[in-house]
């Protein structure tokens, strides 16, 4: 696989010069966050408002900074997995997979087919769970925590609960799983797991029809989301956006299809792409992706591969994995876009047991970088809707 050396030209500054703003206008500075219920975590945006219209928006992430990348350099390869669960806390499974895939690339080992099959199913289930949260919280942001938005939020969380139950049956945990390890899986498939998955996705498929009725046939919801926060394809490309937000703006890119990993090369992944680029398109696209994930899971469950679930023997301690000198990058399709891990391994770093440097490319950081572009010109209410439709996870942005 080659890397594109496409160097985009410098972006124009989205921040307007306030001195040149209409003379005599009374501007007000409003700090949205960091303790605001609708910024999806501790995220602060400084808004300059003219009445209710946003003139300028400056984002200040960093309130959830935990120094994860520095921590990686102190922990051994086997100890890293439980840490990354907390990065994108809405899709911990995919974080675990991504970081273990870069270690496997460093070791140059092939993961057994059964483990890859499990990882594909887990990734798709996690994608459904994460998109359900995104769908629910977007309606919550548009509709209010005590109102119609909350009902939808409850419904999506009820459906997400089914997936958490499946994961709990597999791993014993509901959120921070630590079930992936270098070379394969830690826990094998429990008995009757596939039947449980099939019934859960059947329920979710039915619920999706209900969500569709509740939202796309609701005029107020359409008024609030249609044509709001339009992100053009050019800007999306230039800011390096992919994932649902990019695909809702016409960026036809999905790593599951274009750079397949796990078992995706055997599957025919249909990637939904919308051209509108507004909040409604982003919302609809997530629902379409959930349907696609359901389809993929059904195909996967038809043929269960037998065999071992891990390439390496179960590790006896945290020091089992040692990676020699080299640099590797692995990108996977997380529910928010391309989640990349860039590993520089060195035999000198903790005797080869720890990464020399491990850089994360979090998709949410690119989503947050849209704030100064999308918010100006919209009202305060729309700003919340736009933020909700981007669905960033601050744990991943700040790391």
């Amino acid at each position, binding site marked *: 696989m080659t890397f594109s050396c496409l160097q985009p030209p410098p972006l124009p500054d989205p921040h307007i010069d306030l001195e040149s703003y*209409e003379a005599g206008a009374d501007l007000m500075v409003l700090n949205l966050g960091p303790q605001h219920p609708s910024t999806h975590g501790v995220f602060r945006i400084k808004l300059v408002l003219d009445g209710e219209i946003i003139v300028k928006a400056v984002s200040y992430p960093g309130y959830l900074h935990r120094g994860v990348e520095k921590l990686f350099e102190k922990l051994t390869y086997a100890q890293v997995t439980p840490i990354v669960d907390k990065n994108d806390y809405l899709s911990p499974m995919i974080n675990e997979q991504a970081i273990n895939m870069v270690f496997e690339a460093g070791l140059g080992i092939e993961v057994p087919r059964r483990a890859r099959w499990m990882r594909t199913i887990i990734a798709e289930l996690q994608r459904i769970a994460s998109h359900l949260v995104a769908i629910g919280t977007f309606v919550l942001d548009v509709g209010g925590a005590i109102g119609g938005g909350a009902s939808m939020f409850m419904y999506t969380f009820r459906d997400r609960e089914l997936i958490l139950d499946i994961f709990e049956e597999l791993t014993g945990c509901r959120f921070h799983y630590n079930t992936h390890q270098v070379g394969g899986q830690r826990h094998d498939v429990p008995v009757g797991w596939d039947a449980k998955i099939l019934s859960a996705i059947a329920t979710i498929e039915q619920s999706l029809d209900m969500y569709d009725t509740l939202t796309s046939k609701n005029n107020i919801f359409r008024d609030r989301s249609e044509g709001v926060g339009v992100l053009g394809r050019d800007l999306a*490309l230039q800011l390096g956006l992919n994932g649902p937000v990019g695909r809702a703006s016409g960026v036809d*890119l999905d*790593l599951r299809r274009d*750079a*397949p*990993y796990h078992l995706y090369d055997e599957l025919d992944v249909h990637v939904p792409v919308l051209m509108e680029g507004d909040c409604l398109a982003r919302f609809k696209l997530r629902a379409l992706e959930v349907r696609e994930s359901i389809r993929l899971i059904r195909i996967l469950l038809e043929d269960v591969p037998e065999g071992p679930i891990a390439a390496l023997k179960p590790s006896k301690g945290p020091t089992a994995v040692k990676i020699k000198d*080299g640099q590797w990058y692995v990108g996977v399709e997380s529910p928010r876009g391309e989640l990349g891990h860039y590993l520089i391994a060195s035999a000198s770093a903790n005797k080869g047991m720890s990464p020399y440097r491990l850089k994360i490319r979090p998709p949410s950081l690119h989503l947050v970088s849209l704030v100064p572009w999308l918010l100006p010109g919209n009202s305060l209410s729309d700003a919340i809707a736009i933020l909700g439709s981007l669905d960033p996870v601050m744990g991943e942005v700040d790391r």
Partner: protein
Amino acid sequence: MPTELLLFYALGAGAVLSTAAMLLPTTGRSPIHAALLLIVSFFFLAGLYALLSAHLLSILQIIVYAGAIMVLFTFVIMLLNLSPDEIREPKISYAKMLGGGVALFVFGKLLNGIGLAASAAKAVDLTQHDTFGTVKEVGHMMYSTFMVPFELVSVLLLVAAVGAVVLAKKNLAYVDRPVPSPAEEFKTEGHAAGDGEAAAGHGGHH
């Protein structure tokens, strides 16, 4: 009768006191408190109207004056957010003197008219009619005897409203501003993503 008299004095005293309280140095420094006291005195006046059997007038006093108009008044005062020093500075200009002169003239004319009417009118105790002050009575008057002035006033108010909108409307050019577009040279069709070029690959080695 004593009840009515008692109420009259109570309401009258309330109206006078609340208006007088506006002039006190403690409240006079805060225009908001003064405006709210004005609302209180409007309520007392509404009570006096009700005592005179003018029910419609009293309720309109509350809806229109105490409700709609004073909300806008306080709205403006609060958003101006004047400091006490600014308020205590009386400035006299020619425009203000002219305006004051006109106001005095109109006020004098009004007093004169009231005096004329009072002397010319026969002393009729209107409150003896049981329909006095009811909605029907006022409506009849408004749409028969005072039809033309009533309509003229409403046209005047409409013109004033339209004028206020025209004056207050801002230049909204910025609001319709398009989202800043990226640099021109990047807008090429050749970079249609999805061809794997822009995608970072799985396990790519350097």
